[in-house]
C-alpha cells in the first residue's frame, strides 16, 4: 500500500531531487502561531513536516529544541492542541504530509490506539518515536497499521548492519538516518558518518532514507541531497523563530525564507 509519505518521496525522486522535511514543535511560540509557522515551512518549500509534541524530558534534543519545548509547555500546550495543529496544517496543505514526532510516554499515556485513531482522523500521515526501539514497538505498529499511519524509525551511525535490517524491516514511509552521534542542533559540518550510514541502510531496505541532525544551511542540504532521499531540518527553523524575539511577522518571514533556501539546496545536488 503506497502511503502519502511514500508518494511524496517518490515524486521528489522522479524530479531528480531530494525531499525537504521540516520540523517545528506544536505550541511554539503559541498554538495558533505554531500552526502559522508550520504553514510557512510548507509555503517556503517543505514537502513533509514533522510536528513535535513537546515533552518535559526531551533527552534527544539539544538546547534549541529544549527551549522551544519549554516555551510550548509553559504556554500550556496539550496533546489535543498538537492534534489540532496537525488537523489545520493538513487541511490547509493537502499536498504535504504531516508527521508527529514525539517521545513515547505522551503517546503511551494518551492511549496507543486512541492516539493512532485521533492522529489519523486529524489527517496525520504517521509518527516518529525516537525513544521507542523496534523491540518495544509492537503495540504501536499494530495500531498505526490499522489506521493507515506510517512508523518512521531512526537509525544511527552506531547501528550495526544486522540491527539496521531489523529496524528497517519494521518501519514504513522512510528511514530517518541520524547524521551524527548526538542530540538535535545545528552543526558546522554534516560529517562523513551520514553517507556511510545511508549506504549501509540502503543495503537493507527499499524504503527511502532521509538524513537529519545538524543540517541547517542550503549548502549542507545540497551535500546531503547528493546521497540521501530526503533532508530533515529542525533546530535551524526553531532558532529563526527564537531570533525573531516575539515578532511573528519576522518569524514567519524568516522560516519561509530558510525553507526556500533549503528547497533550493535539495534541488542543486
Amino acid at each position, binding site marked *: 500500500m503506497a502511503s502519502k509519505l511514500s508518494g511524496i518521496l517518490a515524486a521528489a525522486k522522479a524530479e531528480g531531487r531530494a525531499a525537504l522535511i521540516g520540523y517545528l514543535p506544536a505550541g511554539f511560540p503559541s498554538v495558533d502561531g505554531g500552526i502559522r509557522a508550520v504553514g510557512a515551512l510548507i509555503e517556503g518549500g517543505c514537502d513533509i513536516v514533522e510536528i513535535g509534541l513537546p*515533552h*518535559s*524530558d*526531551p*533527552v*534527544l534534543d*539539544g*538546547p534549541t529544541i*529544549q527551549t522551544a519545548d519549554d516555551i510550548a*509547555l509553559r504556554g500550556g500546550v*496539550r*496533546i489535543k492542541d498538537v492534534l489540532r495543529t496537525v488537523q489545520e496544517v493538513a487541511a490547509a496543505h493537502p499536498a504535504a504530509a504531516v508527521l508527529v514526532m514525539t517521545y*513515547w*510516554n*505522551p*503517546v*503511551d*499515556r*494518551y492511549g496507543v490506539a486512541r492516539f493512532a485513531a485521533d492522529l489519523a482522523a486529524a489527517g496525520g500521515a504517521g509518527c516518529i518515536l*525516537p*525513544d*521507542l*526501539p523496534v*523491540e*518495544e514497538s509492537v503495540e504501536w505498529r499494530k495500531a498505526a497499521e490499522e489506521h493507515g499511519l506510517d512508523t518512521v*524509525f*531512526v*537509525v*544511527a*551511525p*552506531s*547501528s*550495526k548492519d544486522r*540491527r539496521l535490517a531489523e*529496524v528497517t524491516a519494521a518501519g514504513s514511509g522512510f528511514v530517518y538516518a*541520524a547524521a551524527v*552521534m*548526538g*542530540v538535535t542542533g545545528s552543526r558546522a559540518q554534516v560529517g562523513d558518518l551520514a553517507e556511510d550510514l545511508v549506504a549501509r541502510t540502503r543495503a537493507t531496505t527499499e524504503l527511502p532514507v532521509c538524513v537529519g541532525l545538524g543540517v541547517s544551511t542550503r549548502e549542507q542540504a545540497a551535500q546531503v541531497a547528493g546521497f540521501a532521499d530526503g533532508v530533515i531540518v529542525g533546530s535551524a527553523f526553531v532558532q529563526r523563530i527564537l531570533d525573531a524575539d516575539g515578532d511573528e511577522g519576522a518569524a514567519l518571514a524568516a522560516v519561509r525564507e530558510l525553507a526556500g533556501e533549503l528547497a533550493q539546496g535539495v534541488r542543486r545536488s
Partner: protein
Amino acid sequence: MSEKSENPSAGPERDHLPGTEVPDARGYFGAYGGRFIPEALVAAVEQVAEEYEKAKSDPAFAAELDALLKDYTGRPSPLTDVRRFSAEAGGARILLKREDLNHTGSHKINNVLGQALLTRRMGKTRIIAETGAGQHGVATATACALFGFDCTIYMGEVDTQRQALNVARMRMLGAEVVSVTSGSRTLKDAINEAFRDWVANVDSTHYLFGTVAGPHPFPMMVRDFHRVIGIEARQQVLDRTGRLPDAVVACVGGGSNAMGIFHEFIPDAGVRLIGCEAAGEGAETPRHAATLTKGDPGVLHGSRTYVLQDEDGQTIESHSISAGLDYPGVGPEHAWLKDTGRAEYRPVTDDAAMQALRLLSRTEGIIPAIESAHALAGALELGRELGPGATVLVSLSGRGDKDMHTAAEYFGLYDEPGAGSAHGGK
C-alpha cells in the same frame, strides 16, 4: 524459626515464590522495565548487557570485586543495635545496617566499583554519571580516581547548591561537575543531560547509572551489585537475634539501597519489606516525590515504571528536602514488588525525616543522611505498629555530613548575629 530448617545459621526454609527470577530476557519485571532508548544507544546498552553476563560467570571478576569491597570499601558493614533510638519506637528492636560506614559514606560505592570494573573490561576510558545528593557522584569520582578514568558528573543546579560539600569532594577527586540548568534543575534533569552526553560520546564513555532504574540491564545489574547489603544483613540479623527480622525498611528514591537490602529477603515470605518514599510537604500536597504512592505507570529514563506525570504524560516535578529522593520515577523492580504486594511503600514527609535525623543523632551519636532518615522515620512508625518483641532491620544507606547545611538551616543551628545560642531547641 522454622522446624524444617536443617541449618539454623541459614535461617528458616524459604518459599520460592513464583517470579522471583526477574527480570526476563527483555529486562521485564512483570509489566515493568524494558528498554526504551534511542537507536544511537542500542549498541552501547547491548554491550553493557553482554559484558555484564560474561563478567558474572568470570571468577576473576568476582574475586577482584570482592577484594575491593573488603579492602577498599571496608565490607562487611556492621549491624548496629540502637537501643536508645528503639525506645522511641514502641519497644521494637531496631537494627541498622551501616552502609554509612562504607568508604565515601554511602551504599553507592558497591555498584560503582562493579561498574568501574566493567568499564575497564569494555575498554572505555571515560565515565559519566548523574547525581542527586552527590553520594553517587562522589562514589563515581572516587572510582575514577582509583582506576584512572576521566569523569564527568551531571548534577542539577538546585542540588549543587544544597549539596555543595559533595560538589567540592567530587572536584577534589578530579571530576568535572556540570551544573544542569534545564527543567527542574534536579536529579531528573541531571539524568537527561547525562543521556545527551552518552549519545554523543558513546564510543569512549560508559554511563555509570547510579540507581536501579534506566534501561535493561541497569535495574538488574545495579541491584545485583547492591545485593551484598541484604546478603550480609540477613546473616548478621540471624547471628545476632537467632531469627529473621519482622520487617526490613529502606528509603526509596530510584531505590538502589532498598533493592540491595530487600532482594535477599524476597523469598522470606514472613519478612515485610517496606520502602519509604519522600512525601515532601505531604503526599496530598503538590510538593512531594512519592512516586509509587501517587504516580501512574509510564516510561521515564528508559524503562516502564511508576512516574509522577500529568494526564498528557508530561513528568511532574518532584519535591523533597532530600536531594537523593527528589525524583519523579522509581526502579521498575519496585513497581513490580508493589503490584505483587511483596513490598509496601509508604510516604514519609520532610518533617518526619528531619525529626528522625535529629533523634538518631541525639540518642545514638549517628548522624544519618536525610535520605536514610526517611527510612528511620518509617521504622519508628512501624515499630509502634508492631510493638515490643518485633525486630526491624533498617538500611542506613548514608551518613549525614553532606546534609549539615540543610539541617543547620532547618533546625537553626547557625549562630545568628546578636542572637543567643538556643541551638536546636525543640
